[in-house]
């Protein structure tokens, strides 16, 4: 019972703290705007710089760093272990948070051993080439809606989005495709057979899945009539039949599935972790010491956060709180409503990160031919069919209601198929409790 209450309390505290975080970010962005205009900068410069620092550096970086700990903790729970608990401050392991400091110290102070036959420039360049594009992707993600405010006597809008570009989704595809170079170069430049195997596997996998990644979102582009992520989020606020929000989840369930699988393959995490398969080839980063390895390692977690953010923006309503939205809009001041929206978005991002951790620790690794078959023979035709069906449905009924209906049918079909093919595994009743007792829970 205590455990249940604790979980309920946790589930309430996370969105609440995210709302407060959103309010703080709005306050800081407006403050930066005030400071910049006082110093004589043109309008929106201060807000843009604050957004770059707060969203791209602070939020993404902190979440990615915490995910490294979260992953160890969740993998431990799934495998019935305790997980990181050896570093204690005042006798408290605090969920393993202190391992973050230990990891950073370890990586920064490790001896810098480089392979002597490496390609010097490219060897140093590869971690950066893996690290930078994942960061840049977050630039187009709309974290919070635009709020009208008066800064220094000038009416401006403050939004939690770094860049609201017309071809937003194309920016995502373009920059995401640059991430290949980090892994491919890391494999080639370290002049090791295992590393180059990893690099070659990574690049072949990533360019294959890029195709279905792009095609999966074409349906959403057609449904929301835009490539601008902010407009796509705004369009998800409309209601179908007066009650169902037009989320991408309802309109494009097949697109969501294909996109999520392809993006998961792009992050090179476990069902798709052939480039780094620890049990066979260690991976493209095998020759990298210390913080250079750390950057390659962290790039993966940044990709996890960015993938969660883009999925949340396109398929789960972005910053729309969805529940009680009308009531919140009427009864809160604009800035607090915007904070609630930002909080809703951040909560969705965290939930999707958590989903990715679970997928990573429950599914076994594919074989290489299975990976290519899944991409070219399953995902690509499905994505193509989705494009044509979505286009036809929008042509027949531009109000999206027919598309929503077909989407609901598709969700039901997926649920039925999942239930039909799932296997019942007999677990002896006492086994779980015994394992938990051994693990010390």
């Amino acid at each position, binding site marked *: 019972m205590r455990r249940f209450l604790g979980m309920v309390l946790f589930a309430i505290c996370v969105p609440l703290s995210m709302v407060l975080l959103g309010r703080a970010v709005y306050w800081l962005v407006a403050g930066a705007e005030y400071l910049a205009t006082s110093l004589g*900068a*043109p309008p929106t410069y201060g807000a843009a710089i604050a957004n770059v620092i707060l969203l791209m550096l602070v939020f993404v970086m902190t979440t990615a760093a915490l995910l490294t700990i979260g992953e160890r903790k969740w993998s431990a729970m799934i495998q019935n272990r305790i997980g990181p608990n050896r570093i204690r401050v005042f006798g408290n392991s605090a969920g393993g948070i202190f391992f973050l400091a230990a990891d950073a110290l370890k990586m920064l102070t490790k001896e810098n051993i480089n392979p002597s036959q490496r*390609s010097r*420039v*490219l060897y140093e*360049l590869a971690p950066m080439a893996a690290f930078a594009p994942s960061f840049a992707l977050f630039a187009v993600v709309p974290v919070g809606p635009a709020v009208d405010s008066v800064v220094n006597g000038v009416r401006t809008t403050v939004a939690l989005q770094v860049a609201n*570009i*017309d*071809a937003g989704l*194309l*920016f995502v*595809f*373009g*920059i*995401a*495709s*640059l991430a*290949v*170079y980090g892994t*491919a*170069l890391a494999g*080639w430049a370290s002049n090791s057979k295992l590393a*180059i195997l990893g*690099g*070659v596997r990574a*690049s*072949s996998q990533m*360019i294959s899945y*890029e195709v279905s990644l792009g095609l999966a979102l074409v349906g959403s582009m057609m449904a929301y009539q835009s*490539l601008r992520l902010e407009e796509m989020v705004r369009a998800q606020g409309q209601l179908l039949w007066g009650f169902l929000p037009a989320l991408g989840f309802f309109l494009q369930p097949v697109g969501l599935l294909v996109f999520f699988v392809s993006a998961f393959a792009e992050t090179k995490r476990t069902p798709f972790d052939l480039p780094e398969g620890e049990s066979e080839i260690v991976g493209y980063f095998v020759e990298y010491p210390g913080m250079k390895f750390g950057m390659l390692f962290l790039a993966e977690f940044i990709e996890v956060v960015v993938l969660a953010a883009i999925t949340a923006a396109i398929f789960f309503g972005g910053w729309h709180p969805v529940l009680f939205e009308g009531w919140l809009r009427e009864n809160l001041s604009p800035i607090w409503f915007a904070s609630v929206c930002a909080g809703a978005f951040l909560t969705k991002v965290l939930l999707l990160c958590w989903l990715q951790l679970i997928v990573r620790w429950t599914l076994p690794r594919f074989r290489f031919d299975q990976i290519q078959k899944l991409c070219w023979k399953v995902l690509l035709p499905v994505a193509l069919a989705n494009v044509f069906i979505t286009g036809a449905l929008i042509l027949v009924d531009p109000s999206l209601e027919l598309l929503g209906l077909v989407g609901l049918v598709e969700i039901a079909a997926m649920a039925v198929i999942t239930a039909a093919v799932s296997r019942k595994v007999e677990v002896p009743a006492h086994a779980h409790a015994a394992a938990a007792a051994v693990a010390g829970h």
Partner: protein
Amino acid sequence: MIDRAEVWVFWVFAVPLIMASAGVVVARNPVNSAMSLVAAFFFLAGIYVLLTAHLLAFLQVLVYAGAIMVLFLFVIMLLTTGDQDFERTRLKVMQVAGAFGAAGVVAVVVLAVNRLGPMPMSAVPSNFGTVKAVGRLLYTQYLLPFEATSLLLLVAIVGAVVVAKQRI
């Protein structure tokens, strides 16, 4: 202020663009050369953005830097084994001819830019370079070249499959 910032951003992209383009020619290792080309595509995309051609910039990065050059790199990595550094050409004739050619190109560019003189800046319509505007143009005025190109690509794919697979 905004104009000055634009000039700064222009130099931020222009200087590395020239350096990367030079790197493509100068680098003796094919992988370095290919990576310089990728960098050149990327910085050229920055110049496109400054010209408010966002769509073109992203497509450039997506298609050339993200897809085509990856395949190039893939082939180079798999096919070149060991030290494949090209030896410095010892032929004096080649060097002299190359120098003349380079000087000629520089002269043509300088003359052309001088002939143009200062150009008046014209305001860009608000929908310039947006996805909608470019898409409308592609699917109305330039429909025939567009479809012809897609047909060409299809033929190329079929040809590649036929050449690569003996038994289909």
